[in-house]
């Protein structure tokens, strides 16, 4: 089996995870910028982080023959401080030409505040001005429905944004249709406790189809599983889905979306 891991925070993972993912058939890993678990005190911290995502982490993955790609932004959890966000967003253009950068992400909302929304709009403008793909984080738990609605409204309001070049991640049963109906892609994040389990993800694929859908593990420093995507492929196999169907979902679909950036070559 082959698969693409389109959303994994590998800077938080041990090297053994690269070994396991490669053994499981991972053909490429993509790493959006995210919250480190603590607030960075200045834009300089983000500069170093962007260097880590675009210089160091690709080298670590390459030791296992694994292509590593990244997305850049200031995560919504740090977007309440608009001045800091402005400083970080000003740093991003100088990194966009780096060979493993695919676009702007994971932007979005966390608590659905006015400042988060303003910073989301700033990121969307940045992506539009530089013709970048967009990867969107939707809020957690009780905030997801409202946040997803607000995010879709922001993206639809900016006529420079092509829906097919946006993926809205962490969908669940109450948001997946809203995202797919908008013409954007939907990401299903496979987590042990929150977000979506492998059986629920396969349920959504069976109900809503496998067009414009990908699955990811979003493994990070919290409770998460870097092998969640191949485990979901096994779940599909148990239900009798064909090898072609499984391959399309875990390899073909992410390759199709990510391939809209010319730098994504595997």
């Amino acid at each position, binding site marked *: 089996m082959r698969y693409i891991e389109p959303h994994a925070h590998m800077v938080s993972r041990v090297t053994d995870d690269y070994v396991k993912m490669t053994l499981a058939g991972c053909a490429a890993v993509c790493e959006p910028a995210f*919250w480190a678990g603590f607030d960075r005190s200045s834009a300089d911290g983000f500069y170093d982080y962007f260097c880590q995502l675009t210089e160091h982490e690709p080298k670590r993955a390459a030791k296992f023959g694994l292509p590593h790609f990244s997305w850049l932004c200031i995560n919504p*959890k740090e977007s*309440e401080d608009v001045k800091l966000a402005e400083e970080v967003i000003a740093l991003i253009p100088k990194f966009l030409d780096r060979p493993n950068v695919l676009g702007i992400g994971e932007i979005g909302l*966390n*608590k*659905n*505040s*006015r*400042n*988060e*929304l303003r910073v989301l709009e700033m990121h969307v403008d940045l992506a539009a001005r530089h013709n970048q793909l967009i990867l969107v984080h939707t*809020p*957690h*738990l*009780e*905030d*997801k*429905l*409202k946040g997803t*609605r*607000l995010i879709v409204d922001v993206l639809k309001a900016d006529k420079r944004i092509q829906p097919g070049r946006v993926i809205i991640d962490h969908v*669940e*049963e*109450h948001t997946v249709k809203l995202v797919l109906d908008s013409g954007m892609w939907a990401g299903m994040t496979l987590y042990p406790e929150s977000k979506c389990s492998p*059986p*629920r993800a396969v*349920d959504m694929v069976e109900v809503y189809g496998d067009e414009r859908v990908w699955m990811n593990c979003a493994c990070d420093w919290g409770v998460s599983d870097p092998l969640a995507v191949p485990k979901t492929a096994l779940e599909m196999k*148990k*239900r*009798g889905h064909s090898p072609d169907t499984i391959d399309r979902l875990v390899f073909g679909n992410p390759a199709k979306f990510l391939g809209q950036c010319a730098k994504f070559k595997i």
Partner: protein
Amino acid sequence: MTQPQVLDLYFMDARSKLIDLAAFLDRVERATGEDDFRIKAFREALKALSAHGPEKAKQVLLVFSDPTTDPIPAATTKAASGAWPGNVE
């Protein structure tokens, strides 16, 4: 899949989770203190499980969700609690 195939694959797992839910409720009820918005929302969500009709997972998620549409003035925390207080309080 046929219903027997679904049951063959998932019944034991679902049975186990159902007993875990029952034990969780027993644990909450043995504990001292008042019900907060989370357990009230949880009890509301349980009603969705017994209802006839499709999209039970979606209905459960909606019970826990903030249904409002305006952004909040400012984020005072980063964390989510799993239930929206306004739905039950």
